[in-house]
């Protein structure tokens, strides 16, 4: 099994399924790896999967979700004692479990969106940052429930993903406004709630998200606006960063940037946001129970 092959599968999945999140795509890739690349022992399978994960990390996609999702997947499929005779049976069991896991994950976004419905009240103004599929799903769900609300989206440079979010919102019929990243402090007194997604959730209770989230959350806390983070629970990671510098580099920068070595002065792609220390108005939605805590 070659690295490039895994990457190809991975990117293919991402290309073909528009709406799939990176973590889900990664898990799908791993499943495909198990299915397609036959091995003889568990150890070999393990190695294969690790190689695959490593390959996916170098794909210029947000690594946080990949790493946490894959880790969970691995834990899940190797959870119980596999006290079976042959390796094929073992493999079959793993595959089965993997598929269950995947199924559950695919439902996750819908569940989160439904759960967040009561928090979007009629006539409220929501501020969101960059593009998050979960937040989008939640808003679409609210539209389906005939709620009228207004959304402010930040441009979120450098990749202007907020623009894409804005387009999608307008297409769904939601009143959306695009604002500068720096205009967050100005607009904060007009909004009622802040809703953001997350790349990853750390052990300390903080979230890792697109750069600019920290400032947004700080100003929301100062003006006493509630901040809601919508996330599926496979994004729970085991890292415990103490400050911004303590986050692993690959979480912060795209792999290409790291490879080129030019990240010394650049600002990271994703930053850390620690609600537990600063902000108390964080409500976390998880699809699953937080059995990690």
């Amino acid at each position, binding site marked *: 099994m070659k690295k490039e092959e895994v990457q190809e599968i991975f990117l293919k999945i991402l290309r073909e399924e528009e709406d799939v999140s990176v973590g889900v795509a990664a898990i799908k890739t791993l499943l495909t790896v198990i299915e397609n690349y036959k091995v003889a022992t568990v150890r070999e399978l393990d190695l294969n999967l690790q190689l695959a994960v490593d390959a996916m990390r170098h794909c210029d996609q947000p690594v946080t979700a990949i790493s946490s999702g894959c880790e969970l997947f691995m834990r899940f499929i190797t959870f119980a004692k596999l006290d079976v005779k042959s390796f094929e049976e073992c493999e079959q069991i793993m595959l089965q479990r993997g598929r*269950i896991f995947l199924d559950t994950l695919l439902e996750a976004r819908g569940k989160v969106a439904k759960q967040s419905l009561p928090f979007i009240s009629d006539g409220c103004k929501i501020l969101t940052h960059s593009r998050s599929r979960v937040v989008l799903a939640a808003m679409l769900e609210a539209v389906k429930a005939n709620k009228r609300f207004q959304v402010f989206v930040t441009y979120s440079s450098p990749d202007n993903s907020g623009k894409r979010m804005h387009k999608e919102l307008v297409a769904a019929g939601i009143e959306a406004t695009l604002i500068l990243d720096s205009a967050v402090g100005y607009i904060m007194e007009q909004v009622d709630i802040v809703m953001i997604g997350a790349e990853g959730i750390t052990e300390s209770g903080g979230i890792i998200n697109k750069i600019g989230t920290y400032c947004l959350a700080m100003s929301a806390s100062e003006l006493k606006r509630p901040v809601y983070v919508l996330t599926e629970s496979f994004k729970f990671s085991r890292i415990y960063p103490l400050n911004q510098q303590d986050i692993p580099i690959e979480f912060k920068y795209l792999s290409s940037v790291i490879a080129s070595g030019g990240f010394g002065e650049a600002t990271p792609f994703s930053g850390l946001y620690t609600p537990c220390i600063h902000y108390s108005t964080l409500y976390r939605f998880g699809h699953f129970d937080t059995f990690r805590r």
Partner: protein
Amino acid sequence: MSPLEGNLQDLDEKSIENIVKFVSDIRTGKLQGSNKIAVATVTLLEQIITDASNTSALFLVNAVRATGRRITKALPHELIAANMVRRVLRAIRDEQRALANQSSEYSGDSLQRLVLAAPSRRATLPSHHDLREPIRDHIAELLGELEASTSAICGQAKEHIHTDELILTYGSSNLVEKFLKASGTNKPKLLLVEGPQHSESAAMATRLSSQGVSVTLVNGAAVGALMPRVNKVVIGVRSTLAGGAVLGEAGLLAVTTAARHYSVPVVVLSPLYKLSPLHSCDHTHFNALAPPYTAMPYMSGESALTQVYAPMCDFVPPDHVTLFITNLGGSSPSYIYRLLSELYDPNDYQI
């Protein structure tokens, strides 16, 4: 079984009658006091279970859930009744799982459960088992817990109240009264702030002072002025919400804001039956307006030309509360979610 599945069956006549009587008792005020309401709900549910024609778990769950829906529709602000319905549902589910030999430690679709129960996730319930007996045992346990909750909380009084401490409490609460009386030899000084129901506060003040507790009664407007001298704020609440937020009497937010400003710890006495798994998304969600004459009497001339509001509840966010005292001991607001997961099944959060 998710709550959105399964048919909502119609309850039989007798059950509906019982429910109607229960609701009207609460509405007319015959049934007052949170503990009494909780006990009455549980007794009602026990009755319904006993009268159920089919004794399978599925049937019972549906019956109880139907009752719950009726009650919440009729009394949307009685969170305690809804909590008791959830408790009974949880009891039924526990029994069902125990019968099906599954571990009931982790409720809900946790990953571990998924793994362990992989083949048969949707439990096919053995319908020939009569679950009523064990459920009745559970209910008896529950009733016992309800009765003991007050004494369990008051037993912790001595740890938290010390001699010559100035304790502030707001409005009138039977639980706080008993808590203070239970402090025994530690004689605190009490500052009782009038709530919107000033006659209740006055009654509580006279009762406590005749018991030997030194009480100073002040008007609700003086809370901010007196807060610098207060050592602790001890309050009773209507209900504790998910996340550690609290629903209390109107004016409670002003008290806790002042306490926070002067860094005075706020202790909330909350027996487990008051723990509700709901979020108050919109802070006025669980609020209701009381009749406005409590704010301004009808006889005054201005009342014809003004709008008078008198809300009943106040929402207090979790960062204002320092400590929750429950039957099981003290806990911080961030731990409430754990207690909730032990008490209720996540499927039942929305009845």
